[in-house]
């Protein structure tokens, strides 16, 4: 079992909803990322999604697009993100999920990526534009290396597709709260809760809800409904605005989860 699986076991034992924090690795620089991850962890993040920047991020809104541009300009590559993971692992056992698009992974090579990611202390991977239909080779290489493969479920997904998403996912299933790209929004979409109910019918895996979650009241709305919530763009925006405020920002967002400070248990 990966650190991701262990985390969700622990959350269950503690009867607690987890906080998944996304940041674009390499934004503003690769050297800054380990420190930002440590701040997120101190602020209460239970799992870190390390975004690997891609030149053409079709699923991302302007905040993460711009972060990706900054990271690429600062020389961030997939190989460099694995180095960052190794750096994080020197001091932390927080679960790490690589979050990117298919082409950088394809170019790196799935087998090589699975091996190198595992060696760097990565626990799993999510490729936004890898549909389950096209993911066979990728999933088998990742699983063979002992890594989790997380897939997206969307409000538009049919029952047949949710079943496939459940089959191909391990660790957890990432629920997309609304039809849209990444980014903050005022209110939680009405499509989020029905999706949770539909997904439960197909899997016992933990469910994490993301897209548009940016305020403590959004987080509070999902407590007791899903196993974890994901915050992305709001964190990226905080990093852009004031990196020194990241820990406090994370702490405010995790407040409704009943956890004021933390870090995973080693």
């Amino acid at each position: 079992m990966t650190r991701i699986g262990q985390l969700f076991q622990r959350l269950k034992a503690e009867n607690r909803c987890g906080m998944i924090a996304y940041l674009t690795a390499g934004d503003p620089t690769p050297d800054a990322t380990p420190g930002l991850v440590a701040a997120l962890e101190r602020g209460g993040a239970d799992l870190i999604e390390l975004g690997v920047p891609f030149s053409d991020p079709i699923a991302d809104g302007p905040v993460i697009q711009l972060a990706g541009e900054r990271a690429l300009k600062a020389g961030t590559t997939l190989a460099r993100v694995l180095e960052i993971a190794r750096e994080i692992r020197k001091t932390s056992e927080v679960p790490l999920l690589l979050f990117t698009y298919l082409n950088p992974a394809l170019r790196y090579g799935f087998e090589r990526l699975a091996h190198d990611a595992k060696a760097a202390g990565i626990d799993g991977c999510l490729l936004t534009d890898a549909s389950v239909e096209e993911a066979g080779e990728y999933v088998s290489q990742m699983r063979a290396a002992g890594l989790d493969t997380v897939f997206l479920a969307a409000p538009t997904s049919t029952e047949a597709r949710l079943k496939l998403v459940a089959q191909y996912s391990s660790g957890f299933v990432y629920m997309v709260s609304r039809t849209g790209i990444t980014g903050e929004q005022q209110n939680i979409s009405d499509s989020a809760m029905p999706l949770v109910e539909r997904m439960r019918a197909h899997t016992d895996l933990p469910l994490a809800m993301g897209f548009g979650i940016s305020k403590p009241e959004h987080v509070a709305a999902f407590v007791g409904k899903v196993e974890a919530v994901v915050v992305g763009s709001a964190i990226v925006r905080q990093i852009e605005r004031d990196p020194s405020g990241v820990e406090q920002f994370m702490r405010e967002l995790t407040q409704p989860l009943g956890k004021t400070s933390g870090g995973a248990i080693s």
Partner: protein
Amino acid sequence: MIATQPDAGGHFGPYGGRYVPEVLMSPLEELQHTYEEARLDPAFHAELDQLLHTYAGRPTPLYYAKRLSETLGGAKLYIKREDLLHTGAHKINNCIGQALLARRMGKKRIIAETGAGQHGVATATVCALFGLDCTVYMGEEDMRRQRLNVFRMRLLGAKVEPVTNGSRTLKDAISEAMRDWVTNVSNTHYLLGSALGAHPYPAMVRDFHRVIGVEARQQILEVEGKLPDAVIACVGGGSNAIGIFHPFIEDDGVRLIGVEAGGRGPGLGQHAARFEGGSPGVLQGTRSYLLQDEDGQISLTHSVSAGLDYASVGPEHALLHDLCRAEYGSCNDTDAIAAAVTLSRTEGIIPALESAHAVAEAIRIAPAHPGQTFIVNLSGRGDKDIDIYRENLPELDAK
């Protein structure tokens, strides 16, 4: 024999497929389903054919370019006059087809991307015709290069949204259109303009343009009594090329020649010759040849012609390339402009810059093939490019 249809997942050999965020998977399944149903519906074809005939102006002529052929002193060159279609390019074929599908799906809002503006104009045109709301995404750089088409779209009632990220060209316009589609998928159809993107687009767009090749094949048989020795077309995303190539694929003796944008030269970032400088990868929903760096980041491209200025190419072309059924070469900016001048002065036809790349290849190889006949697909007319021709031909622009 070469399979002329993709498999159930939209794969052309190792290429094609459906690589999009999960939100778009069901809408693509719906589109595929609607298209498959329409394909078998005689009423759909009757309406499409009627519009192509009475509105778009099909069939287009196959014209024997006698003076150009004699000047070159080699192969006989025939020109397939897609430039004579309503809106000035082949793009309207696909736009009418997809607008009919949007109506079948009950979608009242259309979005599209455009590079040179030809697809944007054709989309704005069919939206006016069908009373649909229309938004066209266009890179800021392309809006500058193709000002006339921007105005045409607005005159037709479309909103033109400038895209300011990345290279501010076609690739970025496609990304922005995909983001819009992800967000507004319940009421919106994405009218993709080339034989690109996720399944079913590459096969569907090709099918709507196959009429070019079907007509050309029949026309050349009528006038020459035999098939051509070569069919030549420019390849950006590759819609005009696959449209004219496809009905000839099983005709073994017919060379299929695609011409990519050679731009300013062979350096990465200077051209859009995917088969010369690229390698397989996944971009914007499909697997095909890509111009990319060693980390899998997509490269910037350059072509004087906005419609060929794209980092990837339709997946069926990738398969035809690997099978050596089609040959792909490139033509640089300078030769394309020179070919446009030659065609203008020998035949009185000013080609679109995109199509000028195909003309240039015909001019290059014709002298070595006396006794042969070539068909060149003239995918669009040059009116939209007058500003660029003026910039590049200052000697004609006397003060």
